């Protein structure tokens, strides 16, 4: 304990390096497996990969990558907050779609100056997402219902409920029923573009959310209590951290971040909510991104960019004879291999750390 070099040798930086290295290794393994799959189906893997790189590295496609990564970062961060407490929020899907409808509709009922209007809609979206997540939170702490089950069920309820609300109350009838959107938002409610028509400022908002996630979860007192409750629930409870309050707070935070997932579309493209103008499945993609990024802020950004990159190439791949579904296959296999390789290498690393520490303690003489 007196030796500075020993202290540094075991700092957390090492395990981060192991995580990063094993993730990259996992991605390569995934690419090899996918090459095998392509070969079996009679496609040339080298051509497919070079096509992916060629189309993806084009300047405009890189903007497309950032754009597609935006909702994934938000969705993954929402999932990661739950994961830190061992809570599996599968309900991000329902939470963000519900929030998108409510926020788009509420936004048409106020008139505010530009930046305030945007902020207002973002706030409404977060509250609506949290409100939908609060049902699962209440069920969990009052009745002990497992959040995996309640959030999956609530996804189905959300979809039907949203459709009913939309068809009966929020659909814009002004055009004789031809519109399949809510009333279009005023100009003051539009998220400014970073690159005209290509990327809007929601990208920066998403980065900000990830940064806030990092500070709150890894630096704050609340975050420490949340992580402790996830790492050893019994020890946390015994040291006076209220388990139920942690679960409710984590689910509400998760839901509020989920509420932002569709905002790039509501505030930046369609300027309204519409069943066809608001992409679905982003909640589930977020689970994969959070897993791939190990719930770490840097990991989440990296994983979201990787998924965004692959997604951005899928349309053009089809044109050049490479099946675009290979992108989804690669994504899925990457998640699996990276999780497995990560887990295996962390275990090896932990074992080696333990052995090395024991050996060092035996040789070094420590003051007693």
């Amino acid at each position, binding site marked *: 304990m007196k030796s500075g070099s020993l202290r540094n040798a075991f700092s957390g930086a090492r395990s981060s390096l192991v995580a990063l290295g094993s993730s990259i290794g996992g991605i390569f393994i995934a690419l090899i497996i996918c090459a095998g799959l392509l070969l079996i189906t009679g496609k040339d893997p080298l051509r497919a990969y070079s096509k992916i790189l060629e189309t993806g590295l084009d300047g405009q496609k890189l903007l497309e990558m950032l754009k597609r990564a935006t909702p994934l970062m938000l969705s993954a961060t929402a999932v990661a907050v739950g994961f830190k407490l061992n809570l599996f929020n599968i309900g991000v899907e329902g939470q963000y779609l519900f929030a998108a409808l409510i926020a788009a509709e509420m936004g048409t009922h106020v008139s505010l100056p530009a930046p305030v209007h945007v902020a207002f809609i973002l706030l409404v979206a977060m509250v609506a997402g949290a409100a939908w997540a609060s049902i699962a939170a209440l069920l969990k702490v009052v009745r002990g219902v497992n959040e995996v089950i309640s959030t999956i069920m609530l996804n189905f309820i959300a979809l039907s409920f949203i459709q009913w609300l939309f068809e009966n109350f929020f659909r814009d009838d002004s055009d004789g029923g031809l519109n399949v959107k809510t009333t279009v938002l005023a100009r003051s409610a539009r998220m400014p573009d970073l690159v005209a028509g290509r990327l809007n400022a929601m990208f920066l908002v998403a980065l900000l959310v990830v940064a806030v996630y990092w500070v709150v979860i890894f630096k704050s007192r609340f975050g*420490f209590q949340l992580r402790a409750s996830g790492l050893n629930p019994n020890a946390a409870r015994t040291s006076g951290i209220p388990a139920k309050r942690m679960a409710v707070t984590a689910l509400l935070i998760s839901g509020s971040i989920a509420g932002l997932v569709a905002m790039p579309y509501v505030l930046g493209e369609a300027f309204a909510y519409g069943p066809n103008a608001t992409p679905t499945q982003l909640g589930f993609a977020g689970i994969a991104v959070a897993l791939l990024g190990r719930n770490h802020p840097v990991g989440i950004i990296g994983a979201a960019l990787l998924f965004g990159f692959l997604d951005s190439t899928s349309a053009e791949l089809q044109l050049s004879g490479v099946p675009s579904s290979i992108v989804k296959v690669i994504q899925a296999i990457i998640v699996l291999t990276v999780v497995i390789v990560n887990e295996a290498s962390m275990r090896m690393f932990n074992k080696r750390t333990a052995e090395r520490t024991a050996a060092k303690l035996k040789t070094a003489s420590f003051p007693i």
Partner: protein
Amino acid sequence: MTLGNKLNSADAMGSKSWAVELRGISKRFPGVIANHDVELSVERASIHAIVGENGAGKSTLMKILYGLHQPDEGTITVNGVEHRFRSPGDAIASGIGMVHQHFMLADNLTVLENIILGFEPTRRGVLALGEARRSVSKIAASVGTNIDLDLKVSELGVGQRQRVEILKVLYRGANILILDEPTAVLVPQEVDELFINLRQLVTQGATVLFISHKLDEVLAVSDRITVMRHGTTVATVVPSEVDRLTLAELMVGSDLPAPTARVIAIGKNERLVVRDLTLIVEGKKSPVQNVSFAVYEGEIVGIAGVEGNGQFELCAAILGLEKSTGVVEVCGRDMTHSSTRERLDAGIAYIPFDRHREGLMLNSSLWENALLGREERFSHALLINRSAAKQACREIIERFDVMTPSETVPAFVLSGGNQQKLVVGRSLSVGPSVLIAAHPTRGIDVGAQAAIWDEIRIARDNGMAVLLVSADLEEILALSDRILIIFDGRISAELAPEDADPQILGTFMTGGRVSLLTMVKPAVGVSAAQDL
């Protein structure tokens, strides 16, 4: 020796035939007492009990025999053949089976499916259930159990589950059975049934080895008893030649420390008051009933008892982790309706029973572990002050001699004793008014134990009130100013340490008057146990 024992009469190995012989077994874990110089001979077709206090090394020894641990020294001989078990598979192959204290059954499978799980008979790759049923029924009949093989395990009671575990072991061909505290989970009439079954097994040539610390049942059912203390075997006796008092003395040892003289008198202020505390549980008997006591400033009150008599639940209730009725006062403040955190803030610190389950985040760094429960002291504007938290951890490491390269290593790299020192240091470093110390020195080496005892004494001399919960009588006698005995969820006796000798403690702790196989009707047994 039982009559009608075919195996025994057929044996030609001289006057005695040993099913199991352990010679000079030693096992070391880093910083932990395990086994040394163990000598054990188990006669074939007999019931052999192994008794000893918690931490005496009974479980480790049985795990060595079952191949879960490999001994550093010594030999294992089974039925005259020396073996080196690398895994439980090797032990099973030479006819040894183990019934663990915590059952390992699949709730959603039937009794039959559970028994054959892993060793399913097949015919051309298809499960031969009929064949399995026949052989399992045969085994069940030979033991004298008539359990319905088609019931799901989830529908069974504890006693029946244990029967399934035993059948499972027998189905795998074991003729030497190890049972780890088989009676700990049973009610008296189930205990009787179990021993009737075991006796029947023995008449058919099987050998039963069981761990227990209930002296009455050991005396009633075993053919021989081996006593373990501090990791080694101290004596092997025949029940007819000893009584429970002798046995208790052997278990505890006659060299109990004399209570150390106090330097500072016990204060007059009540620091922790518990009145009529009863745990609220639905549908079964409350594990803690009407417990009342007070701990004064500068006093150590020891709660002695065999594990599983409500100590754990009592601590949980005082800390507000479990719902209870009754009153809890800390430093004169009524905390009955307060949260755990409020109780801790009022001055309680807790050293938990099990450092891994309730004490540590094993994958987190030491400084984060040291921060747990103290995070409010080391945060500023809602953010954790990392450098202050690390500094505080280094102070614990220095003061309590935690052997570690730094405060940034994960907790799992430390030895058990050093982990425990960190947990104790964390509790004492907040300067509590009341310390609840549950097994503060369990499973750690003598040096670490002495260091922790000294720290608790120093804190006591500074006015801290201590509630010491331990199954280790040596620890209770070394530290306590007053001893309370807990049995079956109630405080059954209060003693001054000068008046406590191993016999008295042993009698109260093991439930004194309950005699097992001598009971005529099970119903009488139940009420007798509760009357204590």
